[in-house]
């Protein structure tokens, strides 16, 4: 296979990976943007959702259409429990940013190692066999059902979110809370209800990404922090309040990481993520599509 064909394949792989990264980051971005909560434990919820899907679908053998919603319910419960018992009480007692970050980091570590104790550090992965067969023989880049599903699910979710935010009453309330919390409160918006709803949406949104991870690189507890790192770089590259920014941020990282493996060993992938983050924070800390902080 020629080198340029390989690069073409890597770029396409990067696009698929980037879609998954976008899905990993969007829930985190929404919580950060609308509720002002830096949800480091997002990575823990994603791992828990992935393991739940593995247990329901892989171990118990339930049909996927039943297992996936079940795992969604569990992720939702985890996200809402964190909102109710971690962030809400801390915010109510005026804990500062450093305290919130510390508590969220501690929760992430707790979840990561609780899951390590249950499932082992190597985690679980499922074979995507049929999904990975090329759809069109001899066509390059290699085009399989997994890629189609990842791109389609991402497109569906991001269009749905855009519609929710731009066209519905609750979306307008979310944007109002994000822009000016005090004004939104005066105008009669139930801030807590909006924040809880955002927490629920963010928790449910871990599942598509967790499912794609389970069927590709696997759900591995040691990667909890890498998940959060990618989610936060997606949020920062995309910029505050930009849904399409988060998707483009994810795709930029995905393609950059994938292209890195063209010339370098796969272990160096994370270096490019960091280089992107560093460069962006130096020249444009508000992100590609964000508005400058007021």
């Amino acid at each position, binding site marked *: 296979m020629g080198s340029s064909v390989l690069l073409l394949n890597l770029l396409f792989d990067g696009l698929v990976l980037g879609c998954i990264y976008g899905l990993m980051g969007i829930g985190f971005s929404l919580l*950060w943007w609308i509720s002002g909560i*830096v949800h480091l434990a997002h990575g823990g919820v994603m791992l828990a959702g992935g393991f739940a899907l593995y247990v329901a679908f892989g171990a118990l053998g339930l049909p996927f259409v039943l297992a996936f919603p079940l795992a969604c319910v569990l992720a939702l419960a985890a996200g809402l429990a964190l909102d109710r018992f*971690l962030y809400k*009480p*801390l915010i109510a007692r*005026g*804990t*500062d*940013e*450093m*305290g*919130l*970050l*510390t*508590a969220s*980091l*501690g*929760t*992430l*570590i*707790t*979840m*990561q*190692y*609780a899951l*390590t*104790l249950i499932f082992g*550090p190597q985690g679980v992965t499922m074979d995507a066999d049929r999904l990975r067969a090329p759809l069109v023989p001899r066509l390059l880049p290699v085009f399989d059902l997994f890629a189609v599903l990842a791109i389609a699910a991402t497109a569906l979710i991001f269009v749905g979110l855009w519609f929710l935010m731009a066209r519905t009453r609750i979306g307008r309330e979310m944007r109002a809370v994000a822009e000016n919390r005090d004004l939104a409160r005066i105008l009669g918006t139930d801030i807590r209800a909006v924040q809880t709803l955002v927490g629920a949406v963010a928790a449910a949104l871990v599942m598509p990404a967790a499912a794609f991870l389970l069927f590709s690189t696997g759900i591995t507890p040691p990667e909890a*922090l*890498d998940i*959060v*790192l990618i989610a*936060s*770089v997606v949020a*920062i590259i995309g910029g505050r309040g930009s849904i399409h920014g988060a998707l483009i941020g994810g795709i930029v990282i995905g393609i950059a990481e994938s292209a890195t493996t063209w010339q370098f*060993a796969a*272990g*160096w992938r*994370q*270096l490019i*993520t*960091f280089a992107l*983050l*560093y460069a962006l*924070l*130096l020249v444009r*800390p508000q992100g590609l599509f964000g508005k400058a902080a007021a």
Partner: protein
Amino acid sequence: MAYPIHLLITFDIFVLLAASLDLLTGFTGLLSLAHAVFFGIGAYATALLAKTLGPVPAALAGAAAAALVSALITLPAIWVRGIYLLIVTIAVQVVFTVVLVNWTELTGGAAGIPGIPPLSLGGHPLRGAELLAVLSAFTAASIFALARLAKSPFGRLLQAIRDDETGCLVLGKNVAWAKVSVFAFAGGLAALAGSFYAHYTSYVDPHSFDIAVSTLILLMVMLGGAGTLFGPVLGALVLTLLPEALKFIPLPPGTAAPARQLLFGLMLVVVVFVRPQGLLGGRLVGAHA
């Protein structure tokens, strides 16, 4: 006597790490999860250079390299803090481990570098109690210097930046320079702790300088009391002894390490809920900024 000496050397090294992180996190309000990086830079500098250059030049080279890396980390963080800085430091920590594991020609990869000579003064190698004495003297001097620094005009500027950064800018203080220099200083001190560590264990590997170590150092600061200097010393003591005590609890093989990390994670959450100012903290740091 070997066991108490081992515990005390470990404690001294953690004191240096926790106290230097307190300068960043407690005094200046800059949350960092990259402290094991500077610790590791010092240790690897000693591992690579001590045989050819001698221990002191190797340690100084490590401290200079760590100070430089530390200052570079701060560059994008000069005008942003809190979460942005935390994410940058997490990224630096992840990248550092990637570099240690993958740059095999320099670092020996996952296997690390064995055969580091013991610290020697005037041709006399220091082991056991002698090393402990030198390290304890250095640690005590460092704590004394940090306590003086905290009370100096520069130390007051750092605390003012923590409490009201905009106010400092309005008063014409050079906030950017203060942040870069405090990061460089804390990084350099952590690197010196790493040099002692490398001489003591005679062996370095990526695992000793990963995110779990950074988290543990942060927990020492938070548990003891950020911004109190002596709180992190107490935190280092508690968290040096706690894993030793845990060894007496019978656990199935392979579960001891994750169970310990689980406990550290829980402690981070519990401290924020129960005693956000830490064990020795008198007031809530930055709560009403």
